[in-house]
């Protein structure tokens, strides 16, 4: 069976700077109505479960906001989800890599 084409991450990823991390933190907090201040989210803490405690409902909401703001669509399997949403930093790296606006 033909494998689906996948987006292979490039060897050197575009650097997600602090301001992008902060900007995404603000969007996540506002989209999900979280009780934490955006500046207080540890960029390396897990977004799923422990850490920020997001679940799959949140991930869909965040994906929608991110796709509108940065002009790219997430289309991945569950394993890929876990990688992208591993932390604010990895989400920001994905945005930096795939954004079109």
């Amino acid at each position, binding site marked *: 069976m033909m494998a*689906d084409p996948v987006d292979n991450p490039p060897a050197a990823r575009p650097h997600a700077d602090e301001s992008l991390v902060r900007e995404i933190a603000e969007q996540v907090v506002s989209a999900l109505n979280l009780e934490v201040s955006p500046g207080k989210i540890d960029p390396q803490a897990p977004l799923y479960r*422990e850490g920020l405690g997001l679940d*799959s*409902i949140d991930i869909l909401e965040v994906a929608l906001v991110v796709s509108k703001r940065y002009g790219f669509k997430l*289309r*991945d399997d569950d394993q890929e*989800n876990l990688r992208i949403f591993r932390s604010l930093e990895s989400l920001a790296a994905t945005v930096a890599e795939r954004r079109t606006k």
Partner: protein
Amino acid sequence: MRTGPHSAAAQACLPLVAHADPRSVAAWRRGEPVTAGRLLADVRRAAQAMPEGGHVLNLCADRYAFSVALLAAVTRRATTLLPPATTPAVIAAMRDFAPGTGFVSDNDADLPELPRIPLAFSAPGDPESGTVPLVEGSRVAAIVFTSGSTGAPQPHAKRWASLVRNAAAEAGRLGIAGPGHAILGTVPPQHMFGLESTVLLPLLTGAALTAERLFYPAEIDEAIRRVPPTRILFTTPFHLRNWLDSGTTGRLETIVSATAPLSESLAREAEARTGATVLEIYGCTETGQLATRRPTVSAQWHAYDGVRLREEDGRTWASGGHIEEPTALSDVIEIDPGDAGLFHLRGRAADMVNIAGKRNSLAYLNHQLAAIPGVVDGVFHFPDEARPEGVTRLVAFVVAPGLTPDAILAALRSRIDPVFLPRPLVMLDALPRRATGKIPVEELRRLAARAASSRQREDA
């Protein structure tokens, strides 16, 4: 021995799949057709590892892998267990329910203390199978669990004849003739709606299932593009709203929503933008599907043929059709005075919560909270919902002098599905219980309002 209209069907043998022609398309995997003959060859291969007469916890997310494992288990008289969540506490409850149960999964994550049953498919060069196995109608093919209202998940046994009858009733109502229909879904196969509509409906009517569990809006768009009409998307109001909000221009023939009420406005928007007929199914894990409606045409529900509702002891009971035993429903229902097959839904029972299509009872959640060592008292509260397709989260008020909120959340996370975790979790010195032990709902609303205003002060 049971007697009555069900007994004859229950004794009879029924085909494992409805695809009479082994060359017909039984599934789509990443846009590639899989024939019924290939599916049956895969089932035969996978059946070699299934425990004869035992139990199989089926955790596959991919609907093709899920179906192969389910059918393979059925052919070995093994019963498939479908849990309401995959938290450690629920997995432990599955082990208690069926000691010795193994699990099948399409990912590498192992489960502590449960043996993995390998899921092997036939190789591309292997011969396809032209024989459709027969299954006794009385066989318990699956046990679907709800979280129940006490500590342990509640089992609901599903016999093959009942599942076949359920699928036929659904196909008849939705106008699915079988071949030429592709079934897409955003709902997991472990939940009753996903099981009956995205797995059994295609397998037992001769339609084609799609393997991918659609999650992101772009995946729904892609899935619609790569399978030919007629396409039917099974989804929830939450996923449907998220998909439309993405700005999709996808078009398809039918959208079917369930698990939570679909508003007329969302149904109207979906019909206008996708060209689809938008239908809604009402049902529950205990009974399976009960009724349908088209929200843009009428708010009234039409029960499936043979299904009848009646009121008794202040509750509504469903019986007839594919329902094996009369079952009390957990919604407030107004039956049409002239026709026991027509009704309106007037809301959920006070104890039930529904978050993005996942259901639970407050009694169960409170039980789980109270069972955490160090929690002296605690109660969950479901705030009034802002809009039907929005996501409203639970609030919990907890008395636990020696515990931090993080420790309580960590303990809850191992017990309940994450969508039911409290946001926020409010620590109190005592709960405002009355002499009877009850907490009036007005008190909970007042506490929730106070917690919200104190958070706003902190932010300022």
